[in-house]
């Protein structure tokens, strides 16, 4: 819970990880390159006071995670979104058992989401069923840029991906979180293309598709898909810290999202341990669209409350104190939410 100016905010951090990128877990140079890339993101977008040493960044462990999120970070509930990256790390990047164990020990605070890779075929489906029976998760995180033998990425529209979505449907796994990385299949196309999300969301209307990082670097393509598909949501992991370095860009991201998909389908994430939630929550509550950006309405306290926690709480059936709940906006399910805002001149 975060309180400021007499307002209380229920905080759900919808995308966290418990990773181990220490050298002894790196399978190849790619494991080092991957965490170095994360660390550059961290160094590039963090305030100086929030910048960690490289050693701290390689591995945090459960105790530190609990402190960063719940003791210091105002978070009421957080959701593990695992990234396996088995080609880069001996024991995987996201620590499945450690994260699941922590979530089991703190079910009121942590939700564990699992992962799968459709390229594992029938054996992977058996594994998914067995894992679900043991861990009972409601969501999965898919990393379409995952390397897998001589394949370096897959699409959500692949026939095998559909087999897995059918299995998710059967098992009651409703929330499909998708991270689009630079996949290369086919290499001739845009590596960050998000159109496969469109196909899957259209064919599986009873599943939620949460596109992490709001499709960045393809914000425009994500918005266009999400505005047409009522079951597509946007996760703000990686977008949040732009508040600090590039507040006008962040205002545009939020402004576009509110316009195209509305306030009920945007979820806050710190992307821990890329960044920690404390400063992100503080800055977001204080954040406002610059006055000269007349193409966007100012952010309301209600919108901030929904984004910071209520939207994800609803998706995951998390109990929210009655006094902190808010009704849905009752907006259109598809199409722009503030058509009058399409007119730059209207506010002048």
């Amino acid at each position, binding site marked *: 819970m975060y309180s400021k100016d007499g307002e209380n905010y229920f905080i759900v951090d919808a995308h966290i990880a418990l990773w181990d990128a220490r050298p002894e877990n790196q399978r190849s140079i790619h494991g080092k390159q991957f965490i170095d890339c994360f660390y*550059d993101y961290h160094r590039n977008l963090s305030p100086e006071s929030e910048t960690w040493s490289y050693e701290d960044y390689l591995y945090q462990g459960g105790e530190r995670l609990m402190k960063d999120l719940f003791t210091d970070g105002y978070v009421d509930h957080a959701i593990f979104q695992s990234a396996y990256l088995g080609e880069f790390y001996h024991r995987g990047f996201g620590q499945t058992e450690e994260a699941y164990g922590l979530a089991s020990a703190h079910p009121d605070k942590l939700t564990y989401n699992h992962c799968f890779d459709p390229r594992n075929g029938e054996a992977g489906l058996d594994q998914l069923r067995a894992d679900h029976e043991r861990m009972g998760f409601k969501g999965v995180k898919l990393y379409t840029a995952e390397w897998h033998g001589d394949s370096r990425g897959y699409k959500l529209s692949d026939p095998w991906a559909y087999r897995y979505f059918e299995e998710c449907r059967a098992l009651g796994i409703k929330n499909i979180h998708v991270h689009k990385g630079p996949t290369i299949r086919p*290499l*001739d196309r*845009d590596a960050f293309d998000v159109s496969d999300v469109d196909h899957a969301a259209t064919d599986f209307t009873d599943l939620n598709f949460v596109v992490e990082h709001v499709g960045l670097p393809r914000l425009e393509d994500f918005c266009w898909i999400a505005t047409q598909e009522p079951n597509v949501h946007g996760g703000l992991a990686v977008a949040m810290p732009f508040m600090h370095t590039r*507040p006008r860009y962040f205002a*545009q991201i939020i402004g576009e999202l509110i316009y195209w998909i509305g306030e009920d389908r945007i979820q806050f994430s710190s992307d821990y341990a890329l960044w920690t939630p404390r400063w992100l929550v503080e800055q977001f509550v*204080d954040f406002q669209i610059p*006055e000269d950006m007349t193409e966007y309405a100012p952010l309301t306290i209600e919108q901030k409350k929904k984004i910071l926690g209520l939207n994800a709480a609803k998706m995951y059936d998390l109990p929210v104190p009655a006094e902190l709940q808010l009704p849905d906006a009752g907006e259109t399910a598809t199409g722009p939410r503030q058509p009058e805002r399409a007119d730059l001149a209207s506010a002048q």
Partner: protein
Amino acid sequence: MTAAHAELAGRVHTVTEDAVRRSLSTVFDPELDEPITELGFVRSIRVDGGPDPTVRVHLRLPTSFCSPNFAYLMASDSKDAVAAIPGVAAVVVELDDHHDSDLINTGLAADAGYRGTFLHEAEDSLEDLRRIFRRKAHTAAMERCLTGLLRADPALRVEDVGGVGLRDLLPGRETDALLRRRTALGLSGDPDAPVLVDDDGRPYPAEAVPLALRRARSTRISIDGNAHFCRGLLRTRYEGSGADQAFRSEGAEPADHHPLLPLTVKESHP
């Protein structure tokens, strides 16, 4: 000196580092629609003199996981651009610190081409990819011009933007950039041609104009955001690389302050 000697001397070209840099400035990052020389992607240029000059170029990117297709495209375009300089006998272009550096550098050294480099991962060619991003660049340029006009002329309504022709645009950088991008797509530069058009140059029906402009705006925001983020990541990854970057005014913010250039940005009021 005999006539034959004189003729020979006239054919000798001295290849300079400047000439190499100029040739590399014609190579664009397709996604950001900017020359690699302005993005700071050229790490080093070395010209080994002598009668058969060999040019060695090292490129660098903001992350090890930048898309390999774009990485290959820029490296391959660089090799072609430098090879076209009169007098250059051999060109070695190497991409540093990328997850596919070995693959790409081997392919470049062997002149294996795109499909020869990526084998089973390559299907056709990178022309479609180039086209996608040329279109995005045009869309963003179009929106910059029209939004500039809307901000400058309060009497102009968004609904009427469909009627704006090239001749109505404010003269300057943004209009020049739009004309260049129209040319790249094969669209008309006729002063009477409408500004707000789709990828094939077709205007929108009146009722579709506001949404078309909004979509174009999200494209522009995305490209500007990516361009600044990529610049920032390169500066973080390679100390001192900011000195090799040209300032980008589109989408600039106080944090993008370039040490060598003055910057004034309207204050925001959180």
